[in-house]
């Protein structure tokens, strides 16, 4: 456990110094601030658009960060030739993979926190500059329910990071791992289509295959509650708990597979 924490701390310290991450976060923050200007064009829908754009920016740039940092598990260590030094230390391979994962998720959450603070500051400014009569607008401008959306984005990105880590144990090419992770993320958005595939094809085999993929692929669409929280609709506690459990189970499965593959990999 101590080794895992040590690796995680090391990865976190190493990652947060990465200038590329700063650029991504800065770009997301600029986008959120500029959404205030875009909101001026929208005939009274400025609050909705600022909320939508802010959550989308967190989701999209968080995805970039998750893929960018996640795929570097092995490739970066090989590039720096540090993998041999790491493996020579008294750190077991499973501790290395799990520690890396938690370090990466920590980095991701730190970046997401910066974006969330910028998001709430923009909304607070919006509320502050609103004419007094509009304070009663429903849902509220600075709505605490938005944090549920941000939390679900964080959970989704934790699964994406696990997917990236999993592929990176396979391949030494960061580019290939990034493409595979992005592909899985896109496929994971089509859960409903895969589930209902039997309604559009006649072949039972194709329908069964689609059904199998529906259960096998991560259902990223389940984490998407952005629309509900922006419109101020309730998201049931049971839905959140079950989805988070699903995410945790998927991460555990991917990390187990990643550890299995990484333990057997020959780096000579």
């Amino acid at each position, binding site marked *: 456990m101590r080794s895992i924490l040590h690796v995680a701390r090391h990865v976190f310290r190493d990652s947060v110094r990465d200038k590329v991450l700063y650029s991504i976060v800065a770009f997301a923050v600029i986008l959120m601030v500029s959404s205030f200007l875009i909101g001026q064009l*929208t*005939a009274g*829908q400025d609050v909705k*658009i600022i909320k*939508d754009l802010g959550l*989308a920016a967190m*989701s999209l740039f968080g995805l970039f960060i998750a893929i960018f940092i996640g795929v570097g598990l092995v490739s970066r260590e090989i590039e720096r030739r540090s993998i041999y030094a790491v493996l020579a230390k008294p750190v077991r391979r499973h501790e290395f993979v799990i520690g890396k994962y938690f370090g990466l998720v920590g980095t991701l959450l730190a970046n997401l926190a910066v974006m969330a603070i910028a998001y709430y500051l923009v909304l607070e400014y919006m509320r502050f500059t609103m004419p007094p009569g509009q304070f009663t607008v429903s849902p509220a401008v600075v709505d605490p329910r938005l944090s549920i959306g941000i939390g679900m984005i964080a959970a989704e990105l934790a699964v994406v990071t696990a997917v990236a880590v999993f592929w990176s144990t396979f391949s030494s090419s960061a580019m290939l791992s990034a493409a595979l992770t992005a592909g899985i993320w896109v496929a994971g958005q089509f859960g409903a*289509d895969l589930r209902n595939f039997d309604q559009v094809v006649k072949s039972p085999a194709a329908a069964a295959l689609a059904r199998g993929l529906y259960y096998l692929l991560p259902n990223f669409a389940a984490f998407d509650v952005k629309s509900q929280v922006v419109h101020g609709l309730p998201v049931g506690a049971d839905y959140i708990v079950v989805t988070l459990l699903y995410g945790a189970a998927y991460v555990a499965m991917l990390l187990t597979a990643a550890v299995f593959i990484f333990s057997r990999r020959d780096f000579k």
Partner: protein
Amino acid sequence: MPLCVLLMGGVVGLQAYREQHFRNLEVEDQILYVRTPSVVARLALSFKDVFADLYWIRAIQHYGSTRLSSSPDKQYALLYPLLDLATTLDPRFSIAYRFGALFLSEGEPGGANRPDQAIALLEKGRTANPERWEYPYDIGFVYYRNREYSKAAEWFRQAAGVPGAPNWLAPMAAVTLARGGDLQTSRLLWQNLLSSEERWVRTAAERRLTQLDAIEQIRQLQSLSSEYQRRLGVPPPSWTALINAGLLRDIPRDPNGVPYVLDQASGVVSIERNSSLWPLPTEGTP
């Protein structure tokens, strides 16, 4: 660095030159590459709400630019497809449905004169949000503007039946059936929209109520013009003639301060074309 500044100046200068000399060659913003909402919904992945916002912004830009256009054959051809896309991507996008109800059903040149599309959009909103009384109310409203009073009354009755609907909706069906087409009923319908959550709807309602004031004033002025003609046998040649006859105290102006127009030949009173209230609606004028 100075070279960069110099080149930037050159770029800005050339863009300004292009703007002045080649404006007519710019591509018209009347193209919608993907029209099928279900395709756009899939392409948008988990960013459907942002795409909905983009289509909404395009819809109001399209409406605004077409409305301000001086072209005699201007059309709001993209208004419905854009609102349809926005509401497919975000089925709870209330303003998009209600904006469509107002401006798709509005007669030309202020609207698309397509009540059928307005009703289709609102039906879609009602199916996606059965708990909202506003959509059946708006459908009734569109039928009312289209002078189909029995259908309007039926939809007002349905709206009143939605749990949480305001109390004033219940008598609306009876009033519409009894007095459909009169100015007071029109005024009542628009006044109800003043309490709408959507700022756009409130602004449109305020404008329409001002137009209804103008219609009422024109009716009164028209009766004065007729009175003048009855007394002297000829239509009044000017407002001054009416003032001299003791029928008016001052040159009458519309609620926005623009003088009304008096046709010398016929004595018909109308609103000035340059007034921001022109053209006046035909509803409430049976």
